[in-house]
């Protein structure tokens, strides 16, 4: 450690905070059930578009197949409409500075693009075609399917993906969220007919949310959307995920990756939802523990011991449940010590209070980054899409800021005790079992499982 002491008299004080701009949110619901949110704001001459369609698996039994179909549908929906082929669609978008990306997760589909302001009408026209009249042409869908199979194989060779999927399987059991990455065999069996059926039943305006942010006039935009998307009126209802089960954490699972030069440590457990009054305290606790560079975990296992490059913790929200997550990729030879220190820091959070200084720092950081994250068209559009998509109003942001500002040391201590205690977390390590099993077993019971992909050819 450096012997220097911080002389606070040298550090320039912070000035008075300047007022945050309050977004001007215009919200309407179309006769088809589609919710439209338009936010004009100054900045660059662009419009950001986000269309969120609820897309949870219909049932636990059908979850694996739903994930497989979703992984193909996100690319295949762009392969053609009754009016245009794939290339024409791409060119129509490109001419407006747009490029539509479609992504899927366990809760939703998201259609997302930026565009030049004069492109709003034409881009909405393309979107209407994709939503209402996609063709899923067989030869192109089959080619897309093969590409997805290959990309999944590449993804499964990444240790971070192996760790994430193992943790989800362990935490969610029979719940649809256990299927983070579909099996290649199921993807290989997806047919164009199945995609057309899935699209017809599930890509529907009811429950969907369209967000437009940027250089846009709310009245004109509402007219354009109403006209362009009036024909998107499929029957069908939104499906949202059921609540996640409360499973016991069980033993630490060690996924063997022979020859790995690092171990991927992952811990996860439940966290309060966005509407739970305990959420602000848990977010603050997560920051103090490992949520940013100034945290206990970073100071301990990176800056003091050099075990790892970027340890971190976070609170993530899905419709069916929220999570507190910890991850660190550490050198193989220090896997046991790194797990011990992580466990120790979690225990310290659970049984001793944070300091006022730690709380104030975490609070200002969360408030500051919330402001930074919504200071661009794209950041605000994504934030509002998520909030409206789960049925929360724009005011949630300001309410949450007030709650963060008011949380006390006692509340953070109580939240840490309930949500960060290490015995409440499910733990997974991906690493070389020959080298890390014994040190991990010294700390508690370990179940060793084989990885599908070795890190070396033995």
């Amino acid at each position: 450690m450096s012997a220097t002491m911080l002389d606070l008299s040298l550090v320039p004080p912070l000035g008075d905070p300047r007022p945050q701009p309050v977004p001007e949110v215009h919200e309407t619901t179309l006769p088809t059930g589609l919710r439209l949110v338009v936010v004009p704001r100054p900045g660059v001459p662009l419009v950001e578009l986000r269309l969120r369609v609820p897309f949870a698996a219909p049932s636990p039994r059908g979850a694996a197949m739903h994930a497989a179909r979703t992984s193909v549908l996100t690319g295949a929906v762009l392969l053609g409409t009754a009016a245009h082929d794939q290339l024409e669609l791409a060119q129509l978008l490109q001419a407006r500075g747009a490029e539509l990306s479609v992504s899927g997760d366990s809760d939703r589909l998201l259609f997302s693009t930026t565009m030049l302001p004069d492109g709003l009408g034409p881009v909405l026209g393309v979107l209407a075609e994709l939503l209402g009249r996609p063709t899923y042409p067989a030869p192109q869908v089959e080619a897309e399917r093969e590409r997805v199979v290959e990309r999944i194989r590449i993804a499964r060779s990444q240790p971070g993906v192996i760790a994430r999927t193992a943790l989800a399987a362990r935490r969610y059991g029979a719940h649809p969220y256990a299927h983070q990455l579909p099996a290649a065999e199921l993807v290989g069996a997806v047919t164009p007919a199945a995609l057309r059926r899935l699209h017809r039943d599930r890509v529907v305006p009811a429950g969907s949310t369209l967000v437009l942010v940027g250089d846009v006039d709310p009245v004109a935009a509402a007219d354009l959307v109403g006209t362009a998307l009036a024909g998107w009126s499929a029957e069908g209802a939104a499906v949202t995920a059921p609540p996640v089960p409360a499973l016991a954490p069980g033993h630490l699972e060690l996924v063997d990756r022979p020859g790995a030069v690092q171990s991927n440590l992952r811990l996860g457990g439940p966290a309060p939802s966005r509407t739970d009054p305990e959420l602000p305290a848990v977010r603050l606790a997560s920051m103090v523990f490992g949520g940013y560079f100034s945290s206990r975990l970073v100071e301990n296992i990176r800056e003091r011991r050099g075990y790892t490059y970027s340890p971190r913790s976070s609170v993530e929200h899905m419709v069916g449940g929220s999570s507190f997550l910890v991850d660190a990729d550490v050198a193989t030879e220090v896997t046991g010590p790194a797990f011990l220190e992580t466990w120790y820091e979690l225990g310290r959070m659970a049984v001793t209070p944070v300091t006022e200084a730690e709380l104030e720092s975490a609070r200002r950081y969360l408030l500051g980054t919330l402001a930074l994250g919504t200071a661009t068209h794209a950041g605000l559009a994504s934030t509002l899409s998520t909030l409206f998509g789960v049925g929360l109003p724009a005011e949630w942001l300001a309410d949450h800021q007030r709650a963060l500002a008011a949380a006390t040391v006692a509340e953070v201590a109580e939240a840490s005790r309930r949500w960060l205690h290490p015995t409440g977390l499910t733990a997974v390590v991906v690493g070389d079992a020959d080298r890390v099993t014994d040190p991990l077993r010294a700390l508690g019971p370990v179940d060793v499982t084989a990885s599908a992909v070795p890190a070396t050819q033995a």
Partner: protein
Amino acid sequence: MSSDAVRVLGVTAAGADLTLRHPVEHFTLDNGLRVVLAPDRSVPVVAVSVFYDVGMRSEPPGRTGFAHLFEHLMFQGSANVPKMEHARLVQAAGGTFNGSTHQDYTNYFEALPAEALERALFLEADRMAAPAITEENLRNQIDVVKEEIRVNVLNRPYGAFPWLQLPPVAFESFANTHDGYGSFVDLESSTVEDAADFFDRYYAPANAVLAIGGDLDVAETERLVRRWFDPVERRPAPPAPQTGEPSPSTPRRGVVEDRLAPAPAVAIGWRVPDPVGDFDTYLGTVLLSELLSEGDASRLERRLLHTDRLAVAQSSYLGLFGDPFDVRDPTLLITQVHHPAEVPTDRVLTAVYEEVDRVATDGVPAEELVRIQARTEAQLLHQADSVLGRTLGFAAAELIHGRAELAGELAARLAAVTPEQVQTAARGLSPDTAAVLELRVTGAAR
């Protein structure tokens, strides 16, 4: 503190109006520090960045990875700031920070609420004057950097592909070919004296650009800059780095084996015009790269994925980290293709060469180029929407091109590129002077 370059294509404009919205003010301190101010008061956020004119290409033999290791050391405290306090002072003000090491520069930056501007200036000035580099902190950060390299390179498939593996095939000189992340042998043998020498030589204020953007008052900010940076001692700037080498006259080919990768890949690197000295010609190459690979309408996406079905992913970009406007000569246009094992590498190469040749021979339809220009303009605007992205763009333009204003003019300059310029650029991409790197699969179960 990543070495992955921040992707800042540059900044701005549907032409003139945005350039006017972001006027750029310049001044130079007596110690040689060049300062760029880019006020924009629409959101209460400021960004502060310091760019030092030293990158991976400046490293001497035996010190591979030192520019990046030194970047880490700049976060270990300074004359008046103990270890960990840099992070605490920024983050407890509601701000974020990072640094990154590139081929030709190393940068440090913060994005903060506007009221924290002076605090960021204090922190940057304190470490510009005197970082506190101790044996203990050096050993600690060597360990951290080794873990960074394990995460990003050694413990994952395609980790060095192609940014560390293609340069030795494409270039001749040590400056351009060596591993910029560093060998473990070189990293472990680094000393505190090496760090002190490196700082003395390269971290002089006269070798740096300070750029500040966002919610600021120009006169007040100039006063604050002078208050904190004027006391930093003047030292001579090092001579400009000599990284140039003759253009290749033969094809070159290399093979790497990846024991973790489940499928093969190939990268092609072509030498392109000088990104600074021959900027107008280079702009044609920038749009050629977009025409080849950006989006579903691009030539290689159509040919490799949809028509011939040879590949699962393709991309083309300029510079090893993909920012065409933050690199000096010599630079590559790189086309990278991931393909199934059943597809031979040469089939992929043939298809790529044919598509480039089609542009060289037939030219580019005007309407296609207009679409590409619209998309490029939108991407530039998108990056300019964040105060930090805009500020980094101004800083890179000042350091690399000697003119911060260039960042605000890029969209207009690209909009003026003609189909003939793109055709000319394609004529420069010959198979006879290409460097090809094949990644072969040797380990993972298929």
